[in-house]
């Protein structure tokens, strides 16, 4: 059901991990739906994404789209990174099954959330960037087993 590219990025995900003292960190999705993505960005003084890492809780498509999204924004300027849409991520992966399209939306949102965090930390406004919609804090449940 997955393309070879999706399977490749799922089996050998690029840029998994964390960045200490990251310029921006964004977490989107929620555990209820089964997908959470966290994106770390290291942005240099010229506004270029020097490094990008991710962690994802989710299905094969969620992992693959996260991995591909990190590759697509690496080395880009903030403005260029903003143009990495879910469609671009999907195309780069040779498509996703219809039920998995929401995973690519999450990847786009994760980039935006990390950029939003960067902008807030630095007290700047990034043109064309809106406050990310989804957030991990929604729907958190306190239950024990």
């Amino acid at each position: 059901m997955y393309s070879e590219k999706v399977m490749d990025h799922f089996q050998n995900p690029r840029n998994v991990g964390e960045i200490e003292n990251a310029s921006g960190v964004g977490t989107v999705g929620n555990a209820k739906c089964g997908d959470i993505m966290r994106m770390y960005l290291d942005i240099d003084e010229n506004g270029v994404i020097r490094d990008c890492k991710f962690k994802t809780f989710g299905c094969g498509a969620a992992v693959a789209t996260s991995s591909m999204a990190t590759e697509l924004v690496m080395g880009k300027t903030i403005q260029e990174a903003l143009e990495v849409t879910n469609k671009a991520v999907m195309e780069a992966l040779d498509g996703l099954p219809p039920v998995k399209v929401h995973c690519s939306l999450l990847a786009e949102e994760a980039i935006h959330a990390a950029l939003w965090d960067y902008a807030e930390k630095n007290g700047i406004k990034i043109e064309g960037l809106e406050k990310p919609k989804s957030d991990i804090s929604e729907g958190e449940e306190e239950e024990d087993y």
Partner: protein
Amino acid sequence: MDRVIYLDNAATTKCAPEVVDAMLPYFTESYGNPSSIYKLGQKSKAAVDTAREIIAKSLGAQNNEIYFTAGGSESDNWALKATAEAYSAKGKHIITSAIEHHAILHTCEYLQKQGFEVTYVGVDENGVLKLDELKAAIRPDTILISVMFANNEIGTIQPIKEIGEIARANGIFFHTDAVQAYGQVPIDVDELNIDMLSASGHKLNGPKGVGFLYIRKGVKIRSFVHGGQQERARRAGTENVTGIVGIGAAARLAHETMQARTAREIELRDYLIGRILDEIPNTKLNGHRTDRLPNNANFSFEFIEGESLLIMLDMKGICGSSGSACTSGSLDPSHVLLAIGLVHEIAHGSLRLTLSAETTKEDIDYTVDSVKEIVAKLRGMSPLYEDYKAGKVKAKIQ
């Protein structure tokens, strides 16, 4: 990857070689129509009768109470829709459980649209039907109780005898979807007060596309498929002779080998459960610890998602199943896992492994080692695990 470890026997099973051998002559040699008068036809009829006899005997039923169908879903649909139709004058209320297979749940939803009322009785944290809730749900217009014999996901075996007694004491028909249980646990329809029972061939090393519905004499439900006089005019259509021969042979084999086979499976299953729970932290067993199908194990691994786990297992040649949303084609995880009280993220991280007579200890060891490695890998990529390790959140499964 040559090695295939098939641990998804609740999804379907391999056809036993004995079953295939029994079926083969009915494709090319004895291919006559059982309704035909000549010898070639009568040979097919005799084969169908033999299969019916084997199955009737295995349930303590009469031959004329066994009706062959195209499988478990048809049997479930028939039992529910035809009972609703035939007994609507008495009442329009049906009771079932929250953890039924979709063949029951979606049929109930359909009947609700037709004006029937359905009560979905809950289960406890082990997946056992709440009998007090069942008793409280009974109304004067209740015509049917349908509760599965054993759950397909978590393997929990229901208190069928008690449910049968409650149904009988209240003059309500009792149907059970025994698709997972038939051939795995002994069933006697009289002892358990079962009025209707659904089963399927491909879950017991038989062929796909064939099943049966047991209908107790006196339950006056009508035909679901109209046409010829086959199956005592209750299920028209030329008999699936090869399939029926196959399910008969499979039923015979399953019952002959049941004791030794299930004893061995229980031992391996418990070894699997023991190793997984001992060696992988933040993991729980879903379903009842002991009142469960001999071959079923179902786990939840916190901080990871089931589909990722399944794909990685597949790369190691291991076939399993999950109740995660991604495997259900919707955004919600399995209704069964939610019904036993799991929160969504725990339900998303489930893995079902179902053994067969061919499963070996080496298979289990290889599987546990693989699961361990994969869970560790996926947790290493999980933001939830990162937060847990950083002390930001508490684990839900200790």
